[in-house]
């Protein structure tokens, strides 16, 4: 790593001293906070192409199982070894966008330009556009903060920049899960990338440092080179449209190699006559000391083989929990008039308009008064409807207070309620039938009174179609999702979270296949704007707001784990043997837990149990 930092340092110094386009260095405090610098550093504007020699070893055209020089951890290696190129035929993968710094390795055109405030001419942002996948990045130079952790991620991420001398340094967060190398080496959604842009005449060196706490054991530095094009190439688009590439393939098929069964794991090493250990990557493959490790070829081969199977102590999630825990309710507009309220247990969704407020889930109830106050800021009208996506107390704990804070004018004074005192003087609570039953059984406060069983529950409210769909045998037998159709926001409840494995409660009717079916139902309703970004937005039961990409990733993970556990069951394995096989190994660094209410082992047990004895209705939808 020292050598790489030295290289980075040397190039930064070079950029600061020999750049042909050096201008007066930029921002200083007197430039005015929030306005951005009056004078930028080196001008990066223009049309560019990547230097081809660099791109060929780094792009999608790279070799399978060529991970050398990447400080990936054991989980990332297993993730990459279970990845076949056929995964790219899964609908949601066909138009996957590019995260940075992979963004800079596409063999096509790039445009860089600046955007200045028309009144002050201060530099508001740099814009980076990449032709492949039509990546469109904005680097804010005006000092604005990065969004909160519960905000959506994109393939472009959220970038801010500053000049250090004539070097533009860009920090990017809020990235989606993407590629470090598109032969299966993942870059997680918890990654922060710092890029340094140094211009030398008609070249720009982009030095990127990837800090990925989930998949890397230490930061990875990558360099790319852009070459200025004298003439605008007049070719900037890269349309992408997904399709049923593999005819007749079902939506719960996600190609993957079982652990230890990747037929191409040795291909690169054998062809290049390298020790397998060197090809499998890891921090030691970045340093000259690797030579010592491979001197004993038998030992190196045995070590490499061991690395192609799960090993080591159980891992826990290394991704930060995006849920605020400061005792306050945080409100964020998701789309249209649908808002996220985060901070009191499970996520709360609120739709507002001229009729009142429609609330999906009510949190744990500990901050119910603050939730009511937050909703009152959004809507002068009362809460009319509350819908519970599940019976769990962290989703229904605020029912009683929110119900009493609301009113249902459709009941008050209606023909049907005249004889009932108090009718409509509180909000109406809706849920799938089994959620009501579970709440009554468990004596949870304020159970729903308005239920649906197999059919959707629908309303046209605040000028918007609102649909609730029951999801049979997903995390429980009472789950539902809610789709606000004009805002195009789906509230997924615990069927989808960004923080843990799905809490499949087999004692209350949950099953893995029902959960996979529910995720596919969501994916059948989503549409992205461009290359798996935007469009239909998803509010998960826990964690940050997403779009369909993260739902698809979650579905993929569950299908892959299902295939592994199913293979164990088919081979006659017991639960203990299945647990010992570590079927979640490559995902534990993102979703795993060894303590708390929902551990990895509890999840695997639920998978095993529901695959061995599936509920009869799990495929009811």
């Amino acid at each position, binding site marked *: 790593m020292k050598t790489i930092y030295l290289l980075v340092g040397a190039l930064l110094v070079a950029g600061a001293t020999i750049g042909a386009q050096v201008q007066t260095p930029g921002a200083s405090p007197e430039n005015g906070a929030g306005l951005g610098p009056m004078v930028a550093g080196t001008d990066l504007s223009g049309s560019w192409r990547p230097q081809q020699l660099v791109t060929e070893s780094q792009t*999608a*055209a*790279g070799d399978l199982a060529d991970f050398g020089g990447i400080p990936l951890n054991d989980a990332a290696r297993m993730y990459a070894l279970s990845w*076949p190129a*056929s995964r*790219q035929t899964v609908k949601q993968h066909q138009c996957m966008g590019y995260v940075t710094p992979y963004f800079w390795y596409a063999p096509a055109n790039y445009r860089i330009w600046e955007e200045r405030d028309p009144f002050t001419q201060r530099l508001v942002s740099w814009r980076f556009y990449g032709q492949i996948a039509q990546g469109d990045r904005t680097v804010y130079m005006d000092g604005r903060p990065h969004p909160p952790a519960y905000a959506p991620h994109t393939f472009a991420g959220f970038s801010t920049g500053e000049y250090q001398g004539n070097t533009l340094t860009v920090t990017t967060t809020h990235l989606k899960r993407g590629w470090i190398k598109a*032969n299966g080496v993942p870059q997680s959604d918890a990654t922060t990338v710092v890029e340094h842009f140094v211009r030398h005449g008609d070249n720009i060196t982009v030095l990127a440092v990837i800090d990925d706490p989930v998949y890397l054991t230490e930061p990875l530095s990558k360099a790319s080179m852009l070459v200025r094009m004298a003439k605008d190439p007049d070719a900037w688009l890269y*349309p992408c449209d997904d399709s049923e*590439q593999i005819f007749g393939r079902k939506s719960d098929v996600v*190609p993957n190699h079982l652990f230890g069964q990747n037929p191409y794991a040795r291909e690169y090493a054998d062809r290049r006559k390298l020790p397998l250990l060197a090809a499998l990557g890891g921090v030691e493959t970045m340093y000259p000391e690797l030579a010592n490790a491979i001197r004993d070829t038998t030992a190196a081969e045995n070590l490499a083989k061991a690395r192609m199977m799960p090993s080591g102590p159980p891992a826990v999630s290394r991704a930060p929990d995006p849920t605020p825990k400061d005792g306050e309710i945080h409100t964020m507009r998701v789309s249209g008039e649908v808002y996220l309220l985060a901070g009191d247990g499970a996520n709360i969704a609120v739709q507002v308009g001229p009729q009142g407020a429609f609330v999906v889930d009510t949190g744990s109830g500990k901050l119910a008064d603050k939730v009511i106050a937050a909703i009152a800021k959004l809507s002068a009208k009362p809460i009319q409807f509350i819908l519970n996506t599940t019976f769990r107390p962290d989703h229904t704990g605020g029912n009683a207070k929110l119900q009493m804070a609301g009113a249902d004018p459709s009941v008050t004074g209606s023909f049907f309620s005249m004889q009932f005192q108090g009718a409509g003087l509180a909000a109406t609570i809706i849920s799938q039938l089994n959620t009501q039953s579970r709440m009554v059984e468990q004596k949870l406060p304020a159970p729903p009174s308005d239920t649906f069983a197999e059919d959707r529950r629908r309303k046209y409210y605040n000028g918007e179609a609102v649909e609730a769909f029951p999801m049979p045998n997903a995390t429980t037998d009472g789950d539902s999702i809610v789709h606000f159709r004009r805002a195009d926001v789906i509230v997924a409840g615990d069927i989808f979270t960004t923080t843990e494995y799905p809490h499949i409660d087999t004692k209350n009717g949950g099953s893995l296949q029902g959960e996979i079916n529910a995720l596919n139902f969501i994916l059948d309703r989503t549409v992205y704007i461009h290359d798996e970004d935007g469009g239909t937005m998803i509010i998960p039961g826990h964690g940050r707001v997403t779009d369909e990409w993260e739902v698809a990733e979650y579905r993929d993970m569950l299908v892959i784990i299902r295939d592994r556990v199913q293979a164990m069951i088919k081979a006659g394995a017991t639960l203990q043997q299945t647990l010992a096989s570590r079927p979640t190994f490559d995902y534990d660094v993102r979703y795993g837990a060894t303590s708390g209410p929902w551990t990895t082992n509890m999840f695997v047990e639920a998978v095993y149990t529901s695959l061995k004895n599936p509920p009869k209705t799990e495929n009811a939808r």
Partner: protein
Amino acid sequence: MKRTLMLLFPTALLLASTLSAHHSFSATYDTGKTVSIEGKVVQFLLRNPHSFLHIEVKDKEGKVAVYNVEWAAAGQLNGTIASSIKAGDLVTISGNPGRDPADLRLRMVNIKRTDGQSWGFDPGQVVN
């Protein structure tokens, strides 16, 4: 099903290095092999960045399978080819087989219709 292993086409290698911007052809297909299939067009998916032909192929026992043939971008094919190939056409296709046999996948090298019209990357052929 007529599925004949053929000799390596130098053109296939050329193709592999020129159109690999979006995903890796060498990771997806065995670019060192070429096989041939004969069957009926089920569907022509004209898409960017890669179009697909679905071909219904019968084997010697009469068992039917649908092959998935990856072709060029809609931007390249939406001229003559798009209006020429239709569901029901009988075609012979040679291409690189997919690495995953379960996908029944080929990467198009050339296509010949029973009326003699052909497109592809062999010398003298055109893409569109």
